[in-house]
């Protein structure tokens, strides 16, 4: 990163940039702000036409209702465990495959890689029913395995990390090979440590996506104790009417942790992305 030179003159010339950026930020955040405000309205007020912007009466009880309506703690832990396991598995499996695609020559490499890429181009809804049947055949319905296993494999992750490995210099690895190290040792000892920024980027992305995954958990786990938060919150939507403020409160509570993760990790995240996705 270029070292910032902070002369007062420079600072002064940045105000148009700040203006554009803050304007955009306000537009971006506005709908979310609305969500926050709604989460504090009573149900009656949330259905007023025309809508009120500021809650007449701050209804903190919506947040308590979330905890009463779903086993929040269990579901929070389920979500955390699901996201962590999926992330860990993807980092290992994707990096192994990605390394092979980037470094090792073997017959059929191109074809297999294209097969991986093809998966990337299929809408996720297509997989719901076939994967459900696999889970059913394995007797895994309503279990942590059901939440985690299909999400352990990722074409996107393999693709991203392959790009990353392609960008790394090869000299050290080659030397190690000449010294008699086997490919796994080279991958584990040399390539993987160098790939940390890329792994981090993929890790964060996988974590974020797993956290919000909705359809799959909803279909595969019906037991509230086995659901992640996303699915638990969806069950708050009633058959005839939805208590919007509670829904908003619940979804805010659920997304808070990932926002924190992003805030803390964003610099490393950007660095990781900066390394990958640059080579064709």
């Amino acid at each position, binding site marked *: 990163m270029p070292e910032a030179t902070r002369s007062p003159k420079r600072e002064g010339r940045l105000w148009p940039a700040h203006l554009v950026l803050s304007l955009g930020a306000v537009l971006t955040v506005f709908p979310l702000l609305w969500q926050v405000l709604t989460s504090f309205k009573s*149900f*009656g007020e949330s*259905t*007023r*036409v025309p809508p009120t912007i500021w809650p007449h009466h701050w209804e903190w009880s919506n947040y308590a209702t979330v905890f009463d*309506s779903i086993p929040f703690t269990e579901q929070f832990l389920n979500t955390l465990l699901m996201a962590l396991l999926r992330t860990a598995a993807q980092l290992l499996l994707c990096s192994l495959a990605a390394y092979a695609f980037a470094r090792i020559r073997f017959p059929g490499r191109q074809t297999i890689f294209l097969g991986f890429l093809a998966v990337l181009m299929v809408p996720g809804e297509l997989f*719901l*029913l076939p994967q*459900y*049947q696999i889970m*059913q*055949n394995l007797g895994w*319905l309503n279990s942590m395995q059901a939440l985690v296993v299909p999400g352990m494999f990722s074409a996107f992750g393999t693709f991203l990390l392959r790009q990353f490995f392609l960008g790394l210099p090869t000299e050290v690895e080659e030397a190690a090979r000449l010294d008699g190290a086997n490919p796994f040792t080279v991958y584990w000892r040399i390539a993987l440590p160098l790939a940390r920024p890329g792994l981090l980027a993929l890790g964060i992305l996988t974590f974020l996506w797993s956290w919000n995954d909705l*359809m799959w958990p*909803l*279909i595969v786990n*019906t*037991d*509230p104790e086995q659901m992640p938060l996303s699915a638990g919150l*969806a*069950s*708050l*939507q*009633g*058959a*005839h*009417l939805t208590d919007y403020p509670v829904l908003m409160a619940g979804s805010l509570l659920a997304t808070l942790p990932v926002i924190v993760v992003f805030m803390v990790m964003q610099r490393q995240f950007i660095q990781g992305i900066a390394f990958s996705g640059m080579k064709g």
Partner: protein
Amino acid sequence: MRRRSLLTAAAASAFAAGCSSSPGSSDSRHGRLTYGIWDVAQLPAMRRAAREFERTRPGVRVDVQLTPNGTYWTKLRTACTSGTAPDVFWMNGPNFGLYADAGQLLPLETEGGEAVLRPADYPADLVSLYRWNGVQYGAPKDFDTVGLWFNKELFDRAKVDYPDAGWTWQDLITNAQRLTDRRRGVHGIGVPVWAQENYYDSIAQAGGWVISEDRKRSGYRDPRTLEGLRLWVDMIHRYRAAPTLQQITDTDATQLFQSGRIAMVQDASYNAATYYADPELRAKVDVAPLARGRRRATVIHGLGNVVYARTPRPALARDFVRFLSGRRASQIQGKYGTAIPAFHGTQRAWVEGMPEFDLQVFLDAVDYAVPYPTSGNTAAWAHKEQQLLARAWSGDESLDGATTALAKAMDQLLDQEGRAGS
């Protein structure tokens, strides 16, 4: 059936294929049962009923499984294919034919010592809703009829007398116009493209019909059927006493009613509890019988409890259904106020639970109710029905044009259904 439930209701099952109807091997009356439901509002009542059943049956455990409305049918379909559906689950009219025809459901005895239900205990239309080719597959759980909800405040302001049993369509039209106050952004009545709450009722009131009794022909060519639909289209475009389809798409009719933007809305009994829950609204609104056309009519629909064909404990599951649709569990349901129990003589608690509303209207409606129209694959044509009627509602197409297309599409689907079934 409101569209939201209809959409999910429409999740009719291609996947149900392959579920065999052979009963499980072990037929013990002990062990664990699962009970699948979709409405979070009814969860407490259902849990309570399950606990009571457990108390009478030592060694039995019932798990109530809530699958949110949006995925209930998708999930049930896949579960049926794999043989993992709940032992007992909720069923509705539009989906029933599909599951019954596919052998997904276990027959329920209606007479003798082992009878799961006695038809005389329930409104006849509800019992017949869950009969397929002469066999009973579901026991009525609850029912809903439709009433005319109105906002007293808006009526007072416009100096219009509250609606009563004497209202005719003409009264409905005239008063909706008088209640319309463009300056304040108020319309007399909201008329979304809702089947159960709006056009199935008015079609029956006009003497029309949606589907023939042998379930082979569409009724959308009958002039009387069109008369029933024209009431609503005219209410929007000719009498200008209702919001346009666009307005009602942007803001749900129920919400417009709750916030005093429409003075009247036809809504089913199941929303009574929702209106009642809002203290402001509770004081402001009430309900009256639907206006009379050529005759008085409302559609009646209700959920049923059914037993999964591949349950490992068919005898226990039947016992549970007998309990769920019996007097005791019906009283529990009534007390919780979320649905009108179907069992004769157990409805008082529901009516008395919300004394500010004239809920007797919904019970009286049973006397002049007509059955909810269904066939073997209701979802397929109900989807077309809403799509095409919406074009007439919006004014993009004439009512004649829309219904001609609808009748053709529906006949074709019913024809396919007949061939698939044979």
